[in-house]
């Protein structure tokens, strides 16, 4: 499957912070065909560092999509049956408008003049895209981690536009621990002298800070088990300690590699803005309880968590499930066993596939 990225521009979007962004662009990919009844569209929403390229081989870069093991002919999100839509989030650096985009008022990148965005703003832009594509109601919105937050936001912001919601390995509100890890990442970036208050475009980028931020992130995506299995205490390319501060252990080498790789594809300011959006996310804000917040939702829910995920632990998914039950909403929930930690929703897909395939099929049947 060859996939192609497209971009659409809208004249403006009003943001939660009070600022109106003019204009705004959103980058997206689609797979499969929209049927005549227009009731087979599924929106895939990506996690923190993801992008619109969710599946297939990119026509531009030759790279495989980030959820290619889940999206395609015969896969969980079966492109023979469904029309799959995937877009890059607002504030990102992979096509949609973000801090590295050109500010039309100055002709320079926004940098820190970019307004602070929220998960709600990301979803509002996705809704504009869905309207633009003429989709009256999505069969499903699905995503993991930050994608799951967008799924929950969709279910309450546009209850009549979503038949099914699949929030995976996520939470209805960021916890102190989650905010703390994000803050470490932000401080690493802002402490890098190359960050220059965000005005590094066209100059040296804050690569060291961004790499450290990513290293911290990667630790939180794995589990103690998966790290022990993958690295143990193995040394990297040597039989004895170096007695210096070069790379000794495999795990150090891996983290450094991941960090340096990330710097090439991600913008440090997007890191700041998107992590802030996650930290601000709290579905209960302005409501007496999570149940009260979810009261407006009409979708069927399939909530999935993973046993070894300590970044978005199962108890957070259960909070959502119990809140939905308290309002007698249709909710299926399963904690899947996995050693992969938070990464499981991307890596450990066999059981996830069975759940999603069955859930989508029964939802689709009920609509036809």
């Amino acid at each position, binding site marked *: 499957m060859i996939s192609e990225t497209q971009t659409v521009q809208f004249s403006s979007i009003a943001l939660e912070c009070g600022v109106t962004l003019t204009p705004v662009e959103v980058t997206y990919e689609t797979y499969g065909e929209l049927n005549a009844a227009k009731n087979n569209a599924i929106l895939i929403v990506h996690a923190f560092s993801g992008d619109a390229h969710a599946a297939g081989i990119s026509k531009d870069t030759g790279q495989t999509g980030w959820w290619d093991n889940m999206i395609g002919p015969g896969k969980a999100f079966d492109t023979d049956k469904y029309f799959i839509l995937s877009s890059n989030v607002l504030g990102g650096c992979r096509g949609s408008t973000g801090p590295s985009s050109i500010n039309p008022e100055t002709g320079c990148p926004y940098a820190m003049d970019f307004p602070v965005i929220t998960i709600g703003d990301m979803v509002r832009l996705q809704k504009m895209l869905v309207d633009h594509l003429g989709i009256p109601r999505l069969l499903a919105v699905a995503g993991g981690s930050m994608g799951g937050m967008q799924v929950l936001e969709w279910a309450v912001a546009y209850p009549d536009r979503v038949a099914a919601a699949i929030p995976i390995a996520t939470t209805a509100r960021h916890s102190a621990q989650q905010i703390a890890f994000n803050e470490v990442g932000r401080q690493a970036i802002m402490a890098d002298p190359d960050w220059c208050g965000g005005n590094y475009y066209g100059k040296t980028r804050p690569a060291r800070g961004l790499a450290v931020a990513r290293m911290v992130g990667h630790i939180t995506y794995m589990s103690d088990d998966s790290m022990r299995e993958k690295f143990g205490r193995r040394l990297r390319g040597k039989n004895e300690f170096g007695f210096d501060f070069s790379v000794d252990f495999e795990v150090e080498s891996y983290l450094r590699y991941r960090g340096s790789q990330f710097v090439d594809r991600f913008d440090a300011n997007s890191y700041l803005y998107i992590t802030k959006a996650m930290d601000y996310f709290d579905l209960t804000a302005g409501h007496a309880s999570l149940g009260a917040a979810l009261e407006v939702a009409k979708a*069927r829910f399939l909530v999935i968590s993973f046993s070894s995920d300590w970044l978005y632990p199962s108890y957070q998914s259960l909070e959502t499930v119990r809140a939905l039950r*308290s309002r*007698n909403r249709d*909710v299926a929930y399963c904690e899947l066993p996995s050693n992969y930690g938070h990464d499981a929703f991307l890596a450990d897909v066999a059981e996830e596939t069975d*759940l999603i395939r069955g859930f989508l099929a029964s939802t689709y049947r009920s609509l036809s």
Partner: protein
Amino acid sequence: MAANATMNAEPFVRELLGRRDYAIIGDIIQPGAKVLDLGCGDGELLAWLAANKRIDARGVEISGPLVQRAIARGVSVFQSDIEEALSDYPDGVFDYIILSQTLQETRAPLKILREMLRVGRHGVVAFPNFAHWTVRLSHLLTGRSPQTKLFPHDWYDSPNIHFLTVTDFEHLGIQEQWTIERRIFLAGQRHVHLLPNLMAEVAVFLLRK
């Protein structure tokens, strides 16, 4: 009996009704009803009721692999302890709540029955009768914990932790002032009408507050 008609309907159903109380439950549930099945296993009964009775089907199951199979077949099942699952729901949101062959495995059966009748308008309870004559005979003759077709486990690996009889349940109904709307007693494929506490292997009660 309508139940027998259901059992003869199609091979799949008959196979399913290896747990014979399924046929009876299928007969009790009104079409289009909102149904919650407690301890629903892999969702077989719910899937069958959804397909044949167009019910709004929900289920609770504690075993992860069974929940996975239920969701994979398209039934809305959530992984939870039965007690905790019920406590979240508002009053009277289901037409029927089913507790099939599970009551004897729960830690707090009375609490669960009361919760069932709070959250559901009707309760459907099916359980193996511990006073069936084979159980009595096994206990009397061997002097050991009864082992029968219905209760095949050794005492140390039995999932059953509360043993109850038809008479026990009737007494509880009086004590709790429940209205028993229907009683169905079974032995094998046959309906039992005489001396149910002695002759019934499985009892099915339809009750409300």
